[in-house]
């Protein structure tokens, strides 16, 4: 116990630990903000894992073809959007089960990119680091939040953008209503499945951007195992955050920190239980749900398909 305490203290005063945590958390956050929109509309979108992976591959392809990080990121978004369009069309136009489609996509996309990756050799590199003047000098967290590769800063843009979209616009009101009571939304003249599809597209674009960032901002070289469950953790973060955007971002930061410990702790001379740390996001979320299940309300129609006339 004492060990753990001093480990946490050590980590808490090490600048590089914050940087590592932020790098981990931001990929989760890109995926989580999109996943949040999809879940508010009623889709428990487990293909987010595939969307990130497709995003990373799309970014690799885009960069390889053009040599531009911007176009690489666009490629990532398009690839994420492509996965999203299959998920959206299958589950919210053709009324196929959303989990089956999601599971299938996770396997399918892994197969496709793994296959293509082994056939095409893509050369990529990481984007350059851009430091935000003054802010980067904040002790401890400065470099973590303001001394990162430039695509990192896109998260500061899309998080408030998505919040505004969902919570302030008519589109967002409709998205929330289809996630809560699709029957009511339907008779109010809202195209329920269309809103759900759109929310998934948005999720795909943002997860794809996350994948693109993961590749071009951090890893630098594509590998089919690059995502390593980050999509699931992002999904968990949304649940952990009680379906609020603030909570989801907090979840990403928390889980990002915990998972980055796996990298930071050995460097500080601690022997750690890697499996325990890896399980922590899931365990913490299960515990949180068990303890606060009554206080937190999930979107009423989450994971329930909408077919007119069937309840």
């Amino acid at each position, binding site marked *: 116990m004492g060990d753990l305490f001093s480990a946490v203290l050590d980590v808490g005063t090490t600048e590089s630990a914050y940087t590592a945590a932020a790098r981990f958390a931001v990929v989760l956050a890109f995926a989580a903000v999109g996943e949040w929109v999809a879940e508010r509309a009623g889709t*428990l979108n*487990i293909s987010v894992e595939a969307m990130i992976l497709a995003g990373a591959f799309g970014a690799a392809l885009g960069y390889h073809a053009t040599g531009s990080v911007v176009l690489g990121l666009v490629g990532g978004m398009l690839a994420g959007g492509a996965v999203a369009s*299959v998920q959206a069309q*299958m589950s919210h136009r*053709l*009324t*196929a*089960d959303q*989990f*089956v*489609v999601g*599971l*299938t*996509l*996770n*396997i*399918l*996309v*892994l*197969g*496709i990119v*793994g*296959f*293509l990756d*082994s*056939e*095409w050799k893509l050369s990529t590199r990481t984007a350059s680091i851009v430091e935000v003047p003054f802010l980067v000098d904040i002790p401890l967290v400065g470099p973590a939040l303001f001394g990162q590769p430039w695509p990192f800063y896109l998260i500061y843009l899309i998080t408030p953008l998505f919040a505004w979209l969902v919570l302030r616009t008519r589109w967002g009101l409709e998205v929330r209503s289809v996630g809560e009571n699709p029957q009511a939304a339907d008779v109010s003249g809202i195209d329920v499945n269309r809103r759900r599809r759109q929310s998934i597209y948005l999720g795909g674009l943002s997860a794809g951007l996350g994948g693109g960032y993961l590749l071009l901002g951090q890893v630098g070289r594509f590998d*089919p195992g690059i995502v390593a*469950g980050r999509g*699931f953790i992002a999904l*968990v973060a949304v*649940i952990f955050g009680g379906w609020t955007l603030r909570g989801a971002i907090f979840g990403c930061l928390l889980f990002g920190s915990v998972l980055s410990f796996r990298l930071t702790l050995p460097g500080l001379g601690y022997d750690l*239980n*890697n*499996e*325990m740390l*890896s*399980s922590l*996001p*899931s*365990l913490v*979320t*299960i515990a949180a*749900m*068990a*303890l606060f*299940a*009554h206080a937190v309300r*999930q979107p009423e129609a989450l*994971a329930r398909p909408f*077919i007119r006339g*069937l309840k």
Partner: protein
Amino acid sequence: MSLAVGSGRGTGGRVVEVVTIYVVCGMAALVFSGLIVEAVGSDWTDVGKALLNGSVLKPGRWGGTIGVTIPLAMVAIGTIISTKANLVNIGQEGQLLVGAATATYVGSRISAPGPIVVVLILLAGVLGGALWSGIAGGLRYWRKVPEVLTTLLLVAVASNLVGYGLKNPWLLLDPEAKLGNRNMVSRQLPLDTRMPRITLWGNEISISAFLAVALILLVGWMLSRTIWGFRLTVVGQNRRVATRFGISESAHGMIAMFASGGFAGLAGAFMLTGGDFANYRLVPGFSVNIGWVGLLVALVANNRAMAVIPMAFVFASLRTGSGFLASTGIERRVTDVVQGLIVLALLLPPAIMFIRERRRALASARSRV
């Protein structure tokens, strides 16, 4: 979903339509797979031949395919039970792993006559899987935590748990494995604690195949013909009616949850003792997606017990067939692509028919304007 008859079409026409849609979707999946293969400069006929040869055609191959079919079918039949109770269990991959781990633990600790150990291994697998799904079930009924989330989350925990066990000799690690090489394997099951294998027309199959078929028939019969199955359906469809008639929602739901995890765990135990996977040892990544794919089998079988066996066989064929792809110079992963496309193709027809039904109604209304 109501399929209103009365648009002037006979049943025969409908059957033709359904079959056509399935065939067209299946062909589309194959064509799309073929295109991907062609895109990287390989020949799709070679790939197709290799897949068929590897799964059923070449001597001795279909035995191996049956070996993969067994755990897939077990996972799927368990899934059907929980679905009947309106529970969404998507954590079979984890339940299978935990079942395999408990089975390994029992198998490497207990010294008794071989057949007894085999039975104990299978029971341990069932218990392990049931325990893992039972956590999700318990949280569902006592803390109202949606089981779809917990089952999913527990997959990651299970895989970490097994990873931990395989690092520690007091749990699962084979004490004789070379630690320097970070060889994370369990002790190999002794010869007499393995599931007997028999040879049929040049194919070796584990006798767990017969056990699996018997279990599937039993579950199918229980769901459709017994009071228990009836009550489970009532619980799944209207829990207030169930409560009103003294049918315990939590008791039936828990049993369904235990059963579904238990079958996944049994799948793990079959994989361990059967010899078609990992050579009678537990290794990291032992589950090789059988849990996920088994779940897909249940869903494309549309939750009919009898459809589980053929569906599981088709999916197993892809896996075993991929073993022959090396000769074609194409990446094994292409079978994941084919598999994914086939699932999507099988999901399409019911959806397409639903849409056509609606279109047809609209069109016939329009035609009389």
